[in-house]
């Protein structure tokens, strides 16, 4: 176990180095003087000289990379050209917004996806099965940005029951505790804010959850089908265990493994989807920040965001790997019984 983890950690560090090199190169590959790209069009010659000095832009690439990593480890991702605020600060605030959205989307997609998959597998070839699999297929074929707009039209414009954009209505005050509005409002007892932010969360979270939900549903179904044909299931039934017990205690537990893998691997989809969903619903998260920064030519911000996203992805993947490994031998022992 320890050997496994240390091997994976080594792998992780390697990937992180590779990612940082790639992001580092980005700024040098864009046409234009990196110094100007980093300080923006309105900087004075003094500013340009200063950044050149600070990042060693006259020196060799390896040296520049060394400075870049040194700064990163200090937590310095540069300063946003637009706001003059350190990128790390800008990223962190918005990251929490994206996390809130992603977690809720993940919960929705996992819950509904697994439920649908389980029921489909149990009622194989029934109408439910057929419908849910068709919908799942539709789910992965649908452009999220279109789905988001259509949902917005139905629920916000036509029927007017859900708000169109933002995280909560602008007049309300958000007392920051954890940075997650739903949590903070509960903790500070602000029920108005709680329900308000919940309402704002529904459409974007559901839109974001669509693709992972579809994938999880399909995966669950096929995984369950495979498990249920195994001998030990039949043994359990023969022993007289109720259908429910069989499904949940034995089958699902064993089928869970690939499902977890899929959930973890889909995290990347979730992050990518966040970019589009946040743009549509004006959700103040990291995804929208990347897009806005790019169109504003705020390259330090773009660089910082992309790096941040990649690091999160890698770390989550590692966590999923470890979780998988942890669950696997345990289950193997359980399954025999």
């Amino acid at each position: 176990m320890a050997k496994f983890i240390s091997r994976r950690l080594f792998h992780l560090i390697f990937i992180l180095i590779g990612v940082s090199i790639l992001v580092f190169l980005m700024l040098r590959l864009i046409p234009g003087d990196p110094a100007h790209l980093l300080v923006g069009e309105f900087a004075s010659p003094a500013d340009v000289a200063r950044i050149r000095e600070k990042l060693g832009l006259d020196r060799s690439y390896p040296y520049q990379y060394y400075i870049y990593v040194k700064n990163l480890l200090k937590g310095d991702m540069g300063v946003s050209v637009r706001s003059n605020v350190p990128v790390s600060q800008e990223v962190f605030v918005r990251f929490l917004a994206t996390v809130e959205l992603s977690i809720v989307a993940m919960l929705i997609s996992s819950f509904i996806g697994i439920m649908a998959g389980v029921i489909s597998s149990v009622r194989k070839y029934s109408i439910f099965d057929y419908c849910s699999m068709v919908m799942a297929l539709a789910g992965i074929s649908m452009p999220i940005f279109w789905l988001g707009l259509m949902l917005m039209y139905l629920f916000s414009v036509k029927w007017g029951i859900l708000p169109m954009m933002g995280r909560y209505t602008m007049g309300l005050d958000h007392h920051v505790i954890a940075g997650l509005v739903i949590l903070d409002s509960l903790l500070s007892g602000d029920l108005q804010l709680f329900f308000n932010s919940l309402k704002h969360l529904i459409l974007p979270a559901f839109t974001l959850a669509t693709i992972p939900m579809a994938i999880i549903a399909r995966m669950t179904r096929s995984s369950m089908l495979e498990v249920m044909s195994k001998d030990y299931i039949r043994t359990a039934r023969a022993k007289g265990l109720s259908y429910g017990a069989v499904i949940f205690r034995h089958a699902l537990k064993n089928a869970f493994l690939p499902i977890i893998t899929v959930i973890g691997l889909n995290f990347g989809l979730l992050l990518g989807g966040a970019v589009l969903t946040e743009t549509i619903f004006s959700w103040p998260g990291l995804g929208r920040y990347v897009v806005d920064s790019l169109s504003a030519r705020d390259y330090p911000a773009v660089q910082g965001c992309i790096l941040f996203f990649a690091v999160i992805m890698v770390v989550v993947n590692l966590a999923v790997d470890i979780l998988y490994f942890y669950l696997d031998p345990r289950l193997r022992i359980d399954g025999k019984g």
Partner: protein
Amino acid sequence: MEIERREIMKRVYISFLLLAALLMMPSFILAQTPVKGGTLTWGRGGDSVTLDLAQATDGESIKAGIQVLENLVIFKKDTMDVEPQLATSWEVSKDGLVWTFKLRKGVKFHDGTPFNANAVKVSFERVIDKNHPFYKYGTWRYPALGLGPVKEVKVIDDYTVALRTEKPYAPLVANLALWLCPILSPAAIEKYKEDIGRNPVGTGPFKFVKWIKDDQIILERNDDYRGQKPHLDRIILKAIPEVSARFMALQSGAVDIADDLDPDSIEMAKSNTNFKIIERPSVNVGYLAVNTKKPILSNKLVRQAISHAVDKQTIVKTIFRGLAIPAKNPYPPSIWGYNNKIVDYDYSVQKAKGLLAKAGYPNGFDIELWAMPVSRAYMPEPVKTAELIQAYLAAVGINAKIVRYEWGVYLDKTAKGEHDMCMLGWLGGNADPDNFLYGLLSSDNAKPPAANIAFWENAEFDKLVKDAQTVFDKAKRTQLYLRAQEIFHEEVPWVPLVHSTIVRVYNKKLHDVPLRPNGLNSFQMIWKEK
């Protein structure tokens, strides 16, 4: 018996009505009394660039800055005449070179320091005197439009200051009312140096509190204000670049006022009883500047061809939904000296093609058409308008590629003359033709960073416009300007597109919302129902 009862019923009804009326009267009266307090959230299309208005060129900076800063004089409420603000009276010497202003006493800046003649001297000289210690703390814009003509500022005593100009300059007092000439606290400039634009300290009815870039600027009531104190507690100016998001914000109540909405949203707002709408004919112009320094475009015939190719009437009817008038001159008819005798280039594909052939381009040519990325009051749908113009040009053989840059970069690059043709506009702050003609079309302003982004240099036009600055007689100035517009029409450095109607849409809970054509709207008098 029946009649009696009917009589009684009638009396009951009438007394009931009277009672109801009596009960409602107080609420009627109450409805008119300004409510103190509240926060106004003001939605606009972009963030300000700087709040030190002497350095500002864009409407968003001006919008916010004028709540905090004051000038010596300002424009009267509904006319373009000038009235005292921080100055109480003024006179000009017989040779027309020295203007003496008497200043208001007992006024304090937001940081507590006193307003006096020295503050005027510092605020002005830092802009015009290269040797002033504060000169390097900013980039001074359009000096020609603001303090340019002023050569020296002399403190006569604490409350008297004299401005000396190089040549007699008739529009000086009108210039001083422009946003470009605010009075700031010298102590604050000393303290913040180059960051004075992010920390403005003035004498206005609102104080600056905080600025979160690209998001919002927060202002607070100045409880020590010398005049009528504002009703509102706070103003939050929120930047919502996407026009549909801005309208949605208004609909959801996230903002109380939405500026620069697209005509389609305005149509929707008109049918919604929750909103009030005010319209004013503008003092602005939206135009297509043709860079006369570039090959092909330096040929007058080509520029005239382009003028014939564009169907302004349709643009006004469709994209602007009628909230504009087609433009034929550099400034709108609401400003004096407008030459109405000029006949605009009519929309004619044939004439356009003919002129192009005569110029030597029978098969047209390729070109770049730059469009703004953000909506402006004079052009709420720049990209759509550009696409339409692109189609019109394509119909005569000119292949235009639409190019966009981020707003700040766009302003910068066009000021440097990197474009072939670009769309831009102007809001004439002081309703003086000089503002438009000299400011945007003279060769003085054709040097980067230029305001004359057609980079047009015409000696005859220059002379007319400069002469008009030194003449004090309005009739004579009018003659000069009429002729200048004729030359403009002939040489076509711009294809003037539209003069748009300014529209402000706001929540009906707000009262006394101003909308001045010149864009200098103080929110001092606004109040909000609870």
